[in-house]
């Protein structure tokens, strides 16, 4: 019967949750749930899982842009209907996975994918760059300091070979968040691109009364840089507003989240920082945060050449110098961050020295260091 606007509560259904996952398992998954014995990477982007029962599941992993249309999803469905008994899945890193239960079905699937232009690149397994997780950027977000989809496209175009081949020392997980809210968390990634602002918020006194709860704006600031202020508008009205102590501002944008009358985005002020060396898995060393090694690169659409080159330089310096199984952070720890800066040809500045909370943890408190070119 469909929705009846006259009776919005009629037959209303709520709190039913998602469909049960078991409904969507391929037969080979259903039959071998919890019985998997080992896996192999047959070739880049193709996994083979073998069960105690002897059954095999071949998985072909393809990248997606994450920002995808329903026409694109329908095309994925066509592929899954043709090759995979009508089932597919998505990974946490925005890849799609097509599964078949027989080795003979793999090549026809790969051929089909390859015949569809650049839509379904196969890769992202083992010692490769995996698909970049990212946020919305200018396609949908109200607080970004850079775009997301476009930057990712530009970076992945440039380092594409590292996605479709497995020739790195270890896996490399990359991520982009278009502002420091990090709705896609990038703080534990091998290489992270992070949108940052560099101009303090303006105060729109004409609008603030209508759109903003003043106390919320004031309490949003982690550094107490926002204070209440009485302001006289052009029409002579005196209103309650706020003023910003710009010297205290750390450009987090938390005030804008709570108060739309305090915009801080700016074409020249905004850009990207590069952070490296984080990881989440506990493999060998525990989870670590990414470190800010390049404090700012400009937004230069449509292809962000400065950002792309910086990422490529770091990736290739690591690829050339690291030992087998060393993630970027493990490599940098071993050779020392002063050597990392040299190897990656990145200038060091005081912007990479922490002066926020808990900063002391990162200051060097030993005479053990290397005489790199930084010491004149």
């Amino acid at each position, binding site marked *: 019967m469909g929705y009846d606007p006259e009776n919005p509560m009629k037959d209303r259904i709520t709190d039913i949750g998602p469909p049960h996952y078991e409904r969507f398992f391929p037969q080979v998954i259903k039959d071998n749930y919890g019985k998997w014995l080992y896996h192999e990477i047959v070739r880049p982007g193709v996994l083979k899982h073998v069960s105690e029962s002897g059954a095999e599941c071949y998985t072909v992993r393809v990248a997606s842009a994450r920002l995808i249309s329903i026409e694109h999803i329908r095309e994925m469905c066509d592929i899954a209907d043709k090759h995979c008994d009508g089932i597919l899945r998505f990974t946490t890193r925005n890849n799609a996975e097509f599964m078949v239960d027989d080795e003979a079905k793999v090549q026809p699937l790969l051929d089909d994918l390859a015949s569809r232009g650049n839509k379904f690149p196969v890769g992202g397994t083992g010692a490769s760059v995996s698909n970049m997780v990212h946020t919305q950027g200018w396609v949908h977000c109200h607080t970004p300091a850079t775009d997301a989809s476009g930057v990712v496209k530009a970076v992945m175009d440039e380092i594409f070979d590292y996605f479709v081949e497995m020739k790195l020392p270890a896996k490399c997980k990359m991520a982009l968040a278009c502002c420091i*809210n990090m*709705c896609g968390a990038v703080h534990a990634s091998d290489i992270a691109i992070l949108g940052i602002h560099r101009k303090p918020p303006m105060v729109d006194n004409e609008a603030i009364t*209508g*759109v*903003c*709860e003043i*106390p*919320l704006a004031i309490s949003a600031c982690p550094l107490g840089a926002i204070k209440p202020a009485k302001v006289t508008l052009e029409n002579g009205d005196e209103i309650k507003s706020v003023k910003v102590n710009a010297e205290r501002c750390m450009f987090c944008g938390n005030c804008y*989240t*709570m108060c739309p009358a305090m915009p801080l985005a700016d074409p020249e002020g905004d850009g990207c920082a590069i952070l490296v060396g984080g990881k989440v898995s506990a493999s060998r060393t525990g989870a670590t945060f990414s470190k800010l090694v390049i404090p700012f690169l400009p937004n230069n659409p449509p292809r962000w050449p400065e950002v792309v080159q910086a990422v490529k330089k770091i990736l290739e310096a690591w690829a050339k110098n690291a030992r087998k199984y060393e993630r970027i952070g493990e490599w940098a720890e071993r050779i020392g961050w002063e050597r990392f800066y040299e190897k990656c040809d990145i200038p060091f500045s005081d912007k990479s020295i922490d002066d926020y909370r808990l900063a002391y943890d990162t200051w060097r408190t030993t005479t053990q260091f290397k005489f790199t070119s930084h010491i004149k």
Partner: protein
Amino acid sequence: MALSIEELKAAILEKALNGPKPQLYLKDFYACDPDSKPRVIKKAANEMVTEGKMVFWSSGSTTMYAAKGRAKDEESRGT
């Protein structure tokens, strides 16, 4: 002794309608009855929304409550 759920709802609505702050965090309602557990207060506040007397306001990351008509919103400005 803790208020009954109906008494609690009345106290919450009173605060949302006539308090100095038009938009409130859930925690702001805890003072409506110090003897009620936060979960009971949450339940009462959310029931007020289901009854159409209050609305949710969300920044996307944070959610607040307001009496119907008191929340700041783009749509209510005719966008």
